[in-house]
Each structure stands twice: as structure tokens, then as C-alpha cells.
């Protein structure tokens, strides 16, 4: 198969969940706020991701087929999830609790998880990163944040071909088939054009890509990260 597709296989209950035919990665977004769900959905769509947005950790687990109350099987639509982005503060199950459940699952622990929060609390950020989150976005989430998500997917792809280095928190699993024909990275970044600025006017500060301040904790962590997180 000579197509440029991002290939990733998952095993669920012994069944091979076949990769979807599309070159677009599929993101599961979790947020109890309807406004925020709408915004994150659009941010992801504009960045050429397929999106499923749910309003709670419970629903996210159900979608993945992880909910204990509903027996997990290949009963759901079988669409693989390539990344999960979740709000931290949610009633019922917090984003942190959802993160833990995913990392505890043998089937889903390799899915990268990103946390979003309106509170910029270092202890919270550290806790999430220690639990295995890829990144922590302080709300309001911007296009420049979402564009970073592609890096987490690409890292998954590289796991298949290079064994060492990188943030190797996770063991190599059959999630990335090393023999699959060159999963092309270009397919992930091709269609996302930098947002054509349709705004008629912007405030005095530059509207596009306001860089993360250097002293933001996540940026700091990423800059000092050489061989592995923590």
C-alpha cells in the first residue's frame, strides 16, 4: 500500500481494530463546558483532525470501550483514537482521573493524553505530567497549542522505527507496527494551513501565534527534556 496514511493498529479484546482509511488523525476531546467543546472541536477540525467531543470522563471511557459498567467489546464504532485531550476540572471524573484510567489500561495506555485547564497551577501540571500526560494546555486553548498535538502523534510513529531516545516513558507495543510501509509524517502536517487571518482587525498585540512565555512551566519542561520526562 503506497498511500500516505498514519497507520496505527490497536488490539482490543484480541481483535485487530483496523486503521481507518483516512489520513486524518482522530482526537477524542473531553470537556463538560459546551462553549469549550465547540471551540476545541473547531480548533481541531481547522487543524485537520477528525474529532469526537464528549462531555464527561465517563462518556470518554464508554467511547473507548473501557467503562466497567458496559462490557468492553468491539461494539462501538471501532474508530481508533489517536489522541485524547481533556479538561482537568470536570464534575464526576476529573481529567486527572480519566488520565489515570487510560494509563492503567493495557489497551489504551499508549494513546497520548493532553490536559487542559484554566488554572495555571504548577503542582497540578506536574502531577499530570508525572501520571503520563504528554502536555498541559492552559486555557483558553489556541491554534498554536493544537498544532503542537501533531508532535505527539509523530512521536508515536517514530517509536516504530527508532528504539531509543525521545520521551520513552512508554514501552514499545504493537500499537506501532514497525513493518508498516513508511507512515508518512507529511500527511499530518500537509493540509493544515496556517489560519488565514479572516479577522478584519486585531488588538494592538499581534493576533497570530502569541509565543508561549519562556517561563511557562510546560515550555520549561520541554526545553530541558533531553532523554526522557521526569
Amino acid at each position, binding site marked *: 500500500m503506497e498511500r500516505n496514511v498514519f497507520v496505527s493498529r490497536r488490539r482490543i479484546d484480541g481483535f485487530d481494530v483496523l486503521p481507518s482509511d483516512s489520513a486524518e488523525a482522530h482526537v477524542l476531546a473531553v470537556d463538560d*463546558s*459546551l*462553549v*469549550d467543546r*465547540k*471551540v476545541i472541536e*473547531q*480548533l481541531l*477540525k*481547522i487543524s485537520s483532525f477528525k474529532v469526537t467531543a464528549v462531555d464527561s470522563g465517563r462518556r470518554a471511557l464508554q467511547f473507548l470501550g473501557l467503562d466497567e459498567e458496559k462490557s468492553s467489546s468491539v461494539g462501538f464504532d471501532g474508530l481508533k483514537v489517536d489522541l485524547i485531550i481533556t479538561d482537568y*476540572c470536570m464534575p464526576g471524573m476529573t481529567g486527572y482521573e480519566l488520565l489515570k484510567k487510560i494509563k492503567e489500561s493495557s489497551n489504551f495506555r499508549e494513546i497520548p493524553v493532553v490536559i487542559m485547564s*484554566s488554572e495555571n497551577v504548577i503542582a497540578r501540571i506536574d502531577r499530570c505530567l508525572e501520571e503520563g500526560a504528554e502536555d498541559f494546555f492552559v*486555557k*483558553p486553548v*489556541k*491554534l498554536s497549542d493544537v498544532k503542537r498535538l501533531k508532535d505527539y502523534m509523530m512521536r508515536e510513529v517514530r517509536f516504530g522505527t527508532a528504539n531509543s531516545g525521545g520521551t520513552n516513558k512508554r514501552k514499545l507495543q504493537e500499537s506501532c507496527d514497525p513493518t508498516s510501509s513508511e507512515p508518512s509524517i507529511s500527511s499530518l502536517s500537509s493540509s493544515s494551513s496556517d*489560519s*488565514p*487571518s*479572516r*479577522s*478584519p*482587525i*486585531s*488588538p*494592538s*498585540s499581534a*493576533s*497570530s501565534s*502569541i509565543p508561549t512565555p519562556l517561563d511557562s512551566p510546560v515550555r520549561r519542561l520541554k526545553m530541558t527534556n533531553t532523554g526522557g520526562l521526569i
Partner: protein
Amino acid sequence: MLGLGADRLWADMNRLLALLFHQGVLDEQFVQLQQLQDESSPNFVCEVVTIYFHESEKLLKNLRGLLMEREFSDYKKMGIHLNQFMGSSSSIGAKRVRNVCVAFRAASEQNNRAGCLRALELLEHEYCYLKNKLHELFHIEQQRLLAAGVRYPMQN
């Protein structure tokens, strides 16, 4: 000339936006939303803002309901509403509304009922202003699209 009408409306829209940014009513997150609007989602900003209005009005009603209670004491519940309001306001770039929520939350954390009442009045006022201005903005945009559309007569 009809073309001039569209251009003038475009200028009106810019002027209103500039004013709102200058007043701190809106911040760059609003611009971010505008950048997410495209041909496949041509009404995105209006849709999100409409959802925001519905949610906000429910929250304001809840907040007022709580504070009007004779034996009000559930500051925790108030805090939850405020966090929601803060979050959604920040997500659409409603800076001044969000800032009032912050002050409101501080009063709530101190169990300061009088302070909360004052903050609620201010919040309702700011929200009202924001809503009016955004409606104005969308109205001008609608007019502009109509005016621009008439330049290209329908072919039968």
C-alpha cells in the same frame, strides 16, 4: 453605489471591534475565534457566542437566585457557577466579564455576601454591554454580507 455600502459597513465593523478591544471588553481570544471561521463553518463565531449567551444567562439567573435566598450560605455552589462563567468567558475572549467573575469569586471565597451582591450587579451590567455590542457586531456583519451580495446579481 452598493459596493460602497458594503465597504462602509466593513469600516463600521472594524471601528466597533477596535473600540471593544480598546475598552478591554474583548481580547485576542476573540480574534482566535474569528480565525477559526472559514467556508465550511461560516457562522462559527456567531454560533459559539450564541451558546455562550444561553449558558451565561442561565448562570446569571442561578447566581442571582442563590444570592436572593433568605438563608443563603452555599458559597461553594456559587463558586462552581463562577468557575463555569469564568471559563466560558475566557474561551470567547470576553475579558471584562471574566475579570468581574474573578473579583466575584474572591468575594465569594471570603463569604462576603454584600461584596458578592455588588459583584453580581457589575457582572450583569458588563454582560449586558457585551451582549449588546456583539449583537451590534453580528448585525453589521449581516448587513455587510447582504450589501456585498447584491453586487453580484443572481443569474437565472
